[in-house]
């Protein structure tokens, strides 16, 4: 069963949120979705760039009350 895990990187600055996402991604199973929470506005563009480069899958990104929620599925 694939899961959704929350990676709470709120109140950390670039490149903290990306680094936290990567650390969790290493431990996740293929098919799992990680939901990154970030208050760093650069994250919304930087994460898709990384996802695209390494070949995972962007699921969604939305800003809810000043917090970015970025979902990424591990594909390999």
């Amino acid at each position, binding site marked *: 069963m694939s899961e959704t895990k929350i990676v709470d990187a709120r109140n*950390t*600055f*670039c490149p*903290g949120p990306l*680094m936290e996402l990567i650390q969790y991604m290493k431990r996740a199973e293929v098919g799992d979705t990680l939901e990154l929470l970030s208050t760093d506005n650069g994250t919304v563009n930087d994460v898709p760039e990384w996802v695209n*480069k390494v070949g995972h899958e962007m699921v969604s990104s939305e800003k809810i009350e000043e917090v970015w929620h970025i979902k990424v599925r591990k594909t390999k």
Partner: protein
Amino acid sequence: MARQINIVCVSGARERLQMAAMIASVAAALGEEVTVFFSMNALQYFVKGNDAEAEAEGDFGRLMAKNPGVPSFRQLFQQAAEIGDAKLLPCSMAVDLLEIAEGDLDPAFGPPTGLTVFLGKSEGGDLLTF
């Protein structure tokens, strides 16, 4: 093919170490081949047991020092090595002058390296100096 990014850390100023560590960690995360060469005032911060804060050279450095959400440069360099296999190399001249013994540096560091070897390995890649 991975891009080769070579970074030379010379300054002991907080802002410069931070920018070098940010570039090293993000480039390593993107799968680039990253090598960081530490010399002069930069190397001392990676001697085991030295957890001194790097001195800010300006207002931005002081601002970063006050904000706990800014990742530490030590942690970012370690992550560069862990997640992207970045090579962290101490300059052999600095190791000798600072009398750093084997095993005294952060374990993420590689062996003391001379300029000739570093320049040979970095040939053709990008070279950034901080």
